[in-house]
């Protein structure tokens, strides 16, 4: 479904602040696979997701969806295949617009109709049904401003929004990191439901080793702009959080400790 061939991204090329954020990523993800992505800060996880989404242009390498070369496609054009949820709950929704307007925007992804009214009773009904899955009572507040909701509520709605249109790829960048543990668990729950329902191909970046092992069927670890480890199947099922931390230690030749073990072990 997704194939990265030697993807490279360099920020500020030629300047003193030059940063090679991706240094030749090779990754092949079959249809319907759920991959969790871990790695220390600055490893290039977000850059990889942003490059797949088209927000960032690769400086070398090629990217394929379903054997279609999409390297030159704009971010907007790629949204026919790609849906995403950001880490910052404020980033994925418009705070000044109502819940139903936000959902209508997401509903328009991939087939912008132009001068037809964006909302109608049929859509409102669909949105109410979807929102009632969250059990947050939002189905009765369709015309409330998004900005009035809590971070967890906004993130939950973002997740529903990402699934309103059929897409094939879902990109999640630490989408539970800003939430309290209870809300994070709820959001992960809905994530799993949606992924299973829509048979999506998923890349989920997470800071939590537990989450990385408990969800999906394959885990990759990024380090300095490359895929340092790629775990799946039998091998992965025998891995625990401790083993992952050992892996982290191995790929750091200087033996530097992780910045924050608590963060990595949490939830």
């Amino acid at each position, binding site marked *: 479904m997704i194939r990265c061939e030697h993807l490279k991204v360099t920020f500020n090329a030629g300047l003193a602040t030059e940063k090679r954020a991706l240094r030749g990523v090779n990754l092949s993800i079959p249809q319907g696979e759920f991959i969790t992505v871990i790695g220390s800060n600055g490893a290039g996880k977000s850059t990889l997701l942003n490059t797949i989404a088209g927000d960032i242009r690769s400086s070398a390498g090629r990217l394929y969806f379903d054997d279609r070369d999409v390297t030159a496609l704009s971010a907007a054009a790629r*949204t*026919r295949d790609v849906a995403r949820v*950001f880490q910052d709950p404020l*980033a*994925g929704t418009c705070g000044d617009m109502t819940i139903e307007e936000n959902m209508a*925007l*997401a509903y328009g992804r991939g087939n*912008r109709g132009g001068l037809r009214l*964006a909302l109608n009773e049929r859509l409102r009904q669909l949105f109410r049904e979807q929102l009632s899955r969250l059990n947050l009572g939002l189905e009765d507040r369709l015309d409330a401003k998004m900005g009035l909701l809590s971070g967890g509520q906004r993130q939950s709605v973002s997740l529903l929004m990402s699934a309103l249109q059929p897409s094939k790829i879902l990109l999640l960048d630490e989408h539970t990191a800003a939430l309290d543990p209870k809300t994070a668990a709820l959001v992960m729950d809905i994530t799993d439901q949606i992924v299973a329902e829509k048979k999506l191909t998923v890349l989920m970046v997470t800071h939590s080793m537990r989450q990385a092992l408990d969800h999906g069927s394959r885990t990759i670890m990024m380090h300095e702009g490359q895929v340092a480890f790629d775990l799946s199947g039998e091998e992965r099922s025998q891995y625990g959080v401790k083993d992952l931390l050992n892996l982290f230690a191995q790929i750091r030749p200087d033996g530097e400790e992780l910045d924050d073990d608590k963060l990595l072990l949490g939830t």
Partner: protein
Amino acid sequence: MSLFSFLGTLEIGFIFGLVAVGVYLTFRVLDFPDLTVDGSFTLGAALAAALILAGVNPYLATLCAMFGGAVAGLLTAWLNLRFNILHLLASILTMTALYTINLRVMGKPNLALIAEPTVLSPFESLGIPNMYMKVIFVAAVVIAVGLLLAWFLNTQYGMAMRATGANPRMAQANGIVINEKIYAGLALSNGLVALAGALFAQTNGFADSTMGIGTIVVGLAAVIVGESLLNSRSMLVIVFSCILGSLLYRLAVSVALNADFIGFTTSDLNLITAVLVGLALILPHFRREWKARKAAQGGAA
């Protein structure tokens, strides 16, 4: 205030309602502070007057004026999007260029429309006194534009435009081509402002190269007055609050100018407007500070 001057105030209030919704589109919907309007208002008046004097049908002339305004908006958007020139600066460049272009369009600093046909001519034979007819005509045009615009902002395209201004990253992640929305929004906004200019020239019988000065501030004043009166999420209410804001602003100004004991003259208008807009921008700031201080005291107690 006499009935005559009251009707004149309404007429100008309605015409500047178009400027207000144009300014609302750029400043609020797209979050793109656009000063092009000072130039595109005059451009609309200049094009309409020059074309009518050249014998063009006034309706066609008005359409051309709107088109000219839209092109001015596109130019500002292009400078900003293509070359990364700060939006304010890009719009100041267009506005400055337009000053010369407007003089060229008119051929001299001002044009008078006296006996020439205007968009109002077909209604002059209806038997309604001219001063009422003019107000009814501009009110009808402005209300129709307001209804269309409110509908537009609720369409898929219009909502995409609102998302572009509110959260471009989110808009893009939902497949919205944001640059296209900015081009379209600036063209629409300046097209409406040019329509205001064209109507002004035809109802008042002249176009002048300096008539656009301060248009942006008047438009902003109307938007702010409207916003402070009606706080709603409904596009219909928001669009009409801009128009209402424009009417109230004009009435307030007209009362101030008519109150002899204050001694304001027309030439004081720009200062009064700037002070009003300044106050409207400063007050919410103070209110926030005041609330924050109160909250801090409450927390400490």
